[in-house]
């Protein structure tokens, strides 16, 4: 048993933290996060050079990481800086390309943006109930259907699309130019897109992609948990600092015991969130992967909302303003619950395990 971060990961975390703090202070971050293309293209290449993307892939796939703790390390730092770069779709796409034995060099160098299109309006999370279909068309395939809220879909050159084909859930690559893509910003920064596929030409990557897609969802979900931990840590720092310095009634508001006890409870819950993320990171690649990731996302969903709401409430009016960093952290913390399965959706998966005979 060992809770020390490896030297390599500590160095990666330090490098990323320094870079992100320099390049994405809250004003700079907001300037890019809420205006198309909802991230900073100039920074994307630099992040790739720092090894951000390679850290997400194992050595035999051209990277130098790829384990649960690598993903957690990277995304915790992204979360701490509220970084709006589309790293999540890159992570998920890398795992799908690897599963398909496809080349991922352009992804890992940052040259090409990929997005992963799974969710649909009536099947937003998970793999059940997807209705997008693919059929043979000449030498290749044609995909039809609607994919909704595809993270990074607004800047992706290549879309990895899950579709029903010949009785199985398969994975296809669709060039962005071959689909109708409506990009937009997200309320908490960053961008996404709606995908309208109408017999769009597609390349088959995996005929039976269920396991690979579930793995991509699990890894993406773990990444969101770690991102939330980073964002909660930063929020905690903002809050504690505010409690120390903001005065009302002639005293620092942090001297009011009612706020003290609530702040302490938040800190306790954040430690629990960190712990469950460690558990999920450790489980990635093992038999308990999906179950522990769901446990983590459920707890993160509850805690991130609590941290967001309490941080706003204890800051008071200032947290209601765009100008205050805490408002953007709060938005991200709440909206993470809308990505890749919310707290109730993941709870239902854990419940199903309890109920299984």
């Amino acid at each position: 048993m060992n809770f020390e971060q490896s030297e390599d990961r500590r160095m990666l975390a330090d490098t990323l933290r320094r870079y992100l703090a320099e390049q994405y202070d809250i004003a700079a971050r907001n300037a890019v996060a809420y205006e198309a293309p909802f991230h900073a293209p100039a920074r994307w290449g630099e992040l790739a050079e720092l090894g951000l993307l390679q850290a997400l892939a194992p050595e035999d796939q051209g990277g130098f990481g790829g384990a649960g703790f690598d993903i957690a390390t990277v995304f915790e730092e992204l979360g701490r800086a509220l970084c709006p770069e589309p790293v999540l779709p890159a992570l998920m796409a890398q795992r799908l390309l690897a599963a398909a034995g496809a080349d991922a060099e352009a992804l890992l160098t940052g040259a090409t943006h990929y997005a992963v299109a799974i969710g649909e309006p009536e099947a937003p999370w998970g793999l059940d109930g997807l209705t997008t279909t693919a059929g043979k068309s000449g030498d290749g395939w044609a995909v039809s259907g609607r994919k909704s809220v595809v993270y990074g879909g607004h800047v992706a050159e290549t879309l990895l699309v899950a579709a029903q084909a010949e009785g199985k859930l398969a994975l296809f690559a669709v060039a962005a130019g071959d689909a109708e893509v409506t990009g937009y910003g997200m309320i908490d920064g960053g961008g996404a897109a709606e995908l309208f596929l109408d017999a769009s030409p597609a390349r088959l990557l995996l005929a039976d992609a269920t396991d690979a897609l579930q793995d991509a969802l699990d890894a993406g979900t773990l990444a969101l948990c770690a991102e939330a931990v980073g964002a909660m840590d930063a929020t905690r720092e903002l809050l504690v600092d505010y409690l120390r310095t903001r005065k009302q009634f002639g005293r620092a508001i942090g001297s009011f015991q009612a706020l003290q006890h609530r702040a302490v409870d938040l800190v306790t819950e954040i430690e629990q969130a960190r712990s469950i993320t460690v558990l999920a990171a450790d489980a990635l690649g093992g038999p308990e992967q999906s179950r522990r990731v769901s446990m983590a996302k459920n707890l993160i969903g509850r805690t991130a909302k609590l941290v967001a709401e309490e941080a706003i409430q204890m800051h008071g009016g200032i947290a209601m303003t765009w100008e205050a960093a805490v408002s953007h952290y709060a938005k991200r913390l709440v909206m993470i619950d809308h990505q890749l399965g919310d707290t109730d959706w993941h709870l239902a998966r854990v419940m199903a395990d309890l109920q299984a005979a």
Partner: protein
Amino acid sequence: MDLSYTPEEIAFRDEVRAFLAAELPEDLSAKVRSGATLTKDDMDRWHAILNRRGWLATIWPEEYGGPGWTPVQRHIFDEETARASAPRIVPFGLNMLGPVLINFGTEAQKAEILPRILDGSDWWCQGYSEPGAGSDLASLRTKAVRDGDDYVINGQKTWTTLGQHANRIFCLVRTRFEGKPQEGISFLLVDLDTPGIEMRPIRLIEGGHEVNEVFFTDVRVPAANLVGKENAGWTIAKFLLTHERTNIAGTGFSVQAFEEVKALARQIRRNGQRLIDDPLFAARLAQVEIDLEAMKITNLRMISEAQKTGHPGVESSMLKIKGTVIRQTLNDLARRALGPAAVPFPAEALAGNAAVAPEDHARDAGRYFNNRKLSIFGGSNEIQRNILTKAMLEL
């Protein structure tokens, strides 16, 4: 003990319903339902409709143009207008300054100002909070120094709601610097076109423009604009906090929000079933429905008490706390219900065919974030707990 309305109250409710059916413009209620920002013209239009009916200044005495309603009638009116998705009455002139003038103003002030509130000539805004004086209002530092027949104001106000539409502002200012902070505050009326005033928008968490900062630099105001006595402004501030709070529980808005979430949960389908058939979501919704049913009774109990005693007690702080929690929970459920569809922003940027969320719900996430304010502004829930501690627990 009888929860049914009297025949007179039912007749009144039907009258309000008929009025709303006939007079509330469809485009206004659609905007309210979808959470869209109302323009000044929208609000003026609705005020004018209410004014024509004599139902605008609902808490003024009849002699000044009020309808002479009982608290129960006011409650019915609040509930019905909320259910019908009517715009809220902009409270600054009607529910705040009006009662202040009626209680503390000179005859001249009443004669000049009250009619202009009713007919929409003036749009008042509020200059209370300052960057360093929020919950602790008594520590305000904007100062007004007497100079001949004028006061000269220097300082800064913030959280001035809808100030961008206003032509006048009522302010709490410091006119004495020694002694207890509460005993050096005065209540001043200021025209916003007076030289030296600058108003700047504050962008809110969800991106909207609702509140402002107001900067005063050597702003000269006639001493006649003082309401009440110099240094007696704290009495007026307290009067507003404890005597004129109306519709504090906001149950009408919550009922409307509940109905919207219920409809949404029946409409949204996920993995082959309606969201309402997901037991975890249904449990959340049923629980808040029950809390709201209780809240409606708590509200009526306190209105009934106010009807007897003439004014709401400190128990209304409970209405504030619980009422805001319930509304925020409903906003939370609407956001949750949408799943990923809550994400796009700003909603207006989406082309029609790309609509992600059901019509009328594209702004639900923004509304959730914006309504975190409910438990902060107007005396945070922490301040309400302090008030209740003192008054009820005598601790």
